[in-house]
C-alpha cells in the first residue's frame, strides 16, 4: 500500500497547498490535516511541515507551534522512525520542538533558526541548497546524488542557525549539517548565505536521519514555469528543480 503523507496545517501556516501539490505531482499520496483534526495524524506514515507563520511566529518562530497538539503526533511519529520533513516554518518548529538536531530532550531546543543577521529583516531571495552529507545519511535525501544542488527560495526573517559554540561543533562532527547555502555553480561562501546562518547552514537532520529541517522552499521553484532560466521547449507544467528533493522523499517512502 502506498505510504500516506500528512501535511499538517497550524493556524498561520501558508504554504500547505503548493507543498501538497508538489508532493502529489512527484507521485506522493499527500493531504492536509488541520489543527482541529490533529488526532487523525496518528494514521499517517510521514509528515511534511510546510512553510508559513504558525501562530504568526509570535514570541519566536515556531515557539508556540512546537507545543501544538499536532506536534504530539509528529514527535511520536519521529521517535517511531516515521519520516518528518520540515520546510521553513516547519523547520523552525522542528528545532523548537527539539527534534532537530535532536541533541537534547524533546521540547528543549538546543539550537534555533533565529532573527536574520546582520539585518533583522525578512529576506526573499533565490538560493541553492547544497547537500553536505552522504545522501544515505538521511532517508529523505537518499535518492539525491552526492553534493546535489537543489534550487529553492529563501523567504524568512528568522532563518539564521544560532547555537552555542559547543552545539555548533557537535552539529558538524556528528553529521547534522545536511545542507549549506551555495551559488548556482555549487560554490559555498558567505555571499551565498541570505541570513547570516552559522555554518552557512540551510538544513539540519537529526541523529537517525529520519527528520530533516530546511529553511528555503524547494516547492517554490518546483515546476518548470517557476524557473527564471527555464529552457524553451520543456513542458512548463512539469515538476523539476526543487522537486528533486520531494522526489527523493517520496522514493524513501516506497
Amino acid at each position, binding site marked *: 500500500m502506498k505510504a500516506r503523507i500528512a501535511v499538517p496545517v497550524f493556524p498561520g501556516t501558508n504554504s500547505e497547498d503548493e507543498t501538497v501539490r508538489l508532493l502529489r505531482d512527484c507521485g506522493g499520496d499527500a493531504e492536509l490535516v488541520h489543527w482541529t483534526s490533529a488526532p487523525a495524524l496518528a494514521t499517517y506514515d510521514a509528515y511534511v511541515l510546510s512553510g508559513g507563520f504558525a501562530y*504568526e511566529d509570535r514570541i519566536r518562530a515556531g515557539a508556540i507551534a512546537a507545543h501544538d497538539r499536532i506536534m504530539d503526533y509528529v514527535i511520536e511519529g519521529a521517535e517511531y522512525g516515521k519520516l518528518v520533513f520540515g520546510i521553513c516554518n516547519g523547520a523552525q518548529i522542528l528545532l523548537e520542538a527539539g527534534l532537530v538536531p535532536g541533541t537534547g530532550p524533546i521540547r528543549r*531546543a538546543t539550537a534555533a533558526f533565529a532573527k536574520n543577521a546582520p539585518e533583522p529583516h525578512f529576506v526573499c531571495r533565490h538560493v541553492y541548497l547544497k547537500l553536505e552529507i552522504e545522501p544515505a545519511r538521511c532517508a529523505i535525501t537518499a535518492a539525491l546524488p552526492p553534493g546535489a544542488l537543489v534550487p529553492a527560495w529563501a523567504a524568512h526573517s528568522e532563518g539564521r542557525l544560532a547555537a552555542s559554540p559547543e*552545539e555548533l561543533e557537535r552539529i558538524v562532527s556528528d553529521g547534522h549539517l545536511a545542507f549549506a547555502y551555495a551559488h548556482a555553480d555549487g560554490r559555498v561562501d558567505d555571499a551565498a548565505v541570505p541570513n547570516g546562518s552559522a555554518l552557512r547552514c540551510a538544513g539540519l537532520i537529526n541523529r537517525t536521519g529520519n527528520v530533516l529541517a530546511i529553511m528555503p522552499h524547494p516547492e517554490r521553484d518546483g515546476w518548470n514555469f517557476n524557473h527564471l532560466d527555464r529552457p524553451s521547449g520543456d513542458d512548463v507544467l512539469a515538476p523539476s528543480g526543487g522537486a528533486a528533493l520531494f522526489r527523493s522523499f517520496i522514493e524513501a517512502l516506497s
Partner: protein
Amino acid sequence: MLAVSVSLKIPDNTAYTALVALRKLGVDVERIERSEILLFDDQDAGALVARITADERIFNPNKHRLSVLESAKPSWGEVWIEPIFGSGRGAVAWRLYNEHGAPVKRPVLEMAIERLLCNPAIDRAVTRDLFDRDNRNEDE
C-alpha cells in the same frame, strides 16, 4: 544606567497569543503585558526621554507608550528575554499577572519561561531573583 520601557498603547496581539498559549500549557496566568526594554548609559532621564521621543525609529506617539524605569532591572513577576548572541542592548519584557491582578509567583514565572518564553539556545532569561543574585555576586 537608565532603562526605558516602550510598550504598545494599541492592542498587543502577541501578548494575547502568548497568554492563550501559556494557559494551554497549564501556566496559571490571567494577564500578560509585553514591552521592549532599552538600556542607556545616560544619567538625565528628562534628556533621555526627549531624545527617544524625537527618534521615530524607536518611538511613535500614535502607537507607543514610554516610561523610564525606576531601576534598570526586572520587577517581580517579570522576565527580560535577552538575545545571547547579539550586540544590541535591549530585551523583551514579559509581565505576568494572576487572577487578583498581582504579579505571578516565582514558580509560575519560571514555568512560563521554561515552557515558552525563552529558548535557552539563543535567549537569556533575566528575572528579579537572577538579577539580584548576580549583582550580589559582583558585590562580594
